């Protein structure tokens, strides 16, 4: 009986100590960290073959970019990650990216998610998280 009470007490305390549960359903729908890594790598491979925008990535450290994008997508999807990269404005400064460039990248991401078999609603949720960033990315 005493054991049961202390168990309940411990459970109760543990529950109190927890943060309100974060919605990580998108993170799970994207296949968690491994799935997001495959999506990001697929997108970068698509970009490498994309004559519309590949020139913007010529002098970029692709492995670092991959790691930062995985962090960013993970955070946006509600996953247990921390974004350690530069702000969107900083990282795109001087690139003068156009609206068309942004859309080309979206298409390369969509193709990567299709290749990973990400369900359409999950794709749309990630795009809805990324779309508001356009203003911080283009025409800088």
């Amino acid at each position, binding site marked *: 009986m005493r054991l049961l009470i202390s168990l309940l007490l411990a459970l109760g305390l543990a529950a109190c100590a927890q943060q309100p549960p974060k919605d990580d359903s998108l993170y799970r729908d994207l296949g968690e960290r491994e799935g997001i890594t495959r999506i990001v790598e697929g997108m970068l491979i698509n970009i490498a073959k994309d*004559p*519309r925008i590949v020139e913007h990535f010529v002098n970029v450290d692709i492995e670092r970019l991959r790691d930062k994008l995985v962090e960013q997508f993970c955070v946006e999807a509600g996953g247990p990650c921390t974004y350690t990269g530069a702000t969107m404005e900083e990282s795109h400064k001087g690139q003068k990216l*156009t*609206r*068309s460039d942004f*859309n*080309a990248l*979206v*298409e390369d991401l*969509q193709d990567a998610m299709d290749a990973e078999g990400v*369900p*359409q*609603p*999950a794709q*749309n*949720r990630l*795009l*809805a998280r990324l*779309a*508001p960033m*356009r*203003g911080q990315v283009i025409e800088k």
Partner: protein
Amino acid sequence: MNTTFSALTLGLGLTVASAAALADNGRLLATGGASSINGAAGGGITPWAVLAGYGEQGEWGGNAFVTRVETGDYRLDVAGGAVSYGNRIELSYARQRFDLGTLARDLSLPGNTLSQDIFGLKVRLFGDLIYDQLPQVSLGIEHKRQKDFFVPNAVGAKRDEDTEGYIAASRLFLGGAFGYNLLVNGGLRYSRANELGLLGFGGDRRDTRSVLKEGSVAVLFNPRWAVGVEYREKPDNLNFAGESDWADVFVGYFPNKHLSIVLAYARLGEIATLDNQDGAYLSIQGSF
């Protein structure tokens, strides 16, 4: 010789490749819409606020299309095209030919078709279909010239050409329909066109323009497939027959940025005394 030839082939190949790449630049798939029966980019029976083709800032876009609506008693054939620049301004043209079929036989009319030309101009005022805070809002005008005015004149139409204006707002809500993308369009038209203008403009019952509501809602199951409904209010200017509002349900297929196909089932109600004009709608569009 061989080297020169190879270099030339390579150069040409690169040129073609870069031209192809440019052609696929711009906006996202399906955001150029299909071609409405008036020639402006949009749905089927109403325009959207989007501009023809896939051009973004500094780029051209355009399309060409053919459409047929078949109700059994009547047939409407439309052909036309549109060009746009900078995702800002659109010019469109459509030729409509309305085949009176049954009616021409029953009434022994002198001609069995009614045709008109429609010249359209659409300007995006502000907003963006997907990205900005505000929905995309466009203002359009259409100048219409009815080509066979004998029958329209006989049934009370007042003039064979007229200009009408419309304002349209469009927004794509990402994940807005149970996780699928939701496209919502609404518009107001200021017009006195009888049956699009095929029966002339203004009439013996009413000769002033009316404010007419139109709109559509579509769900995109993926970037290539859309299913939706449309509605278009129409005026009622002629005494000889009632004019019904139009509605349809449609399926749109956008396999790539150069082709779209729209199939619809349209309820067109009463047209020139013949009621219950339901029928099939098919539109095929090429675009860039």
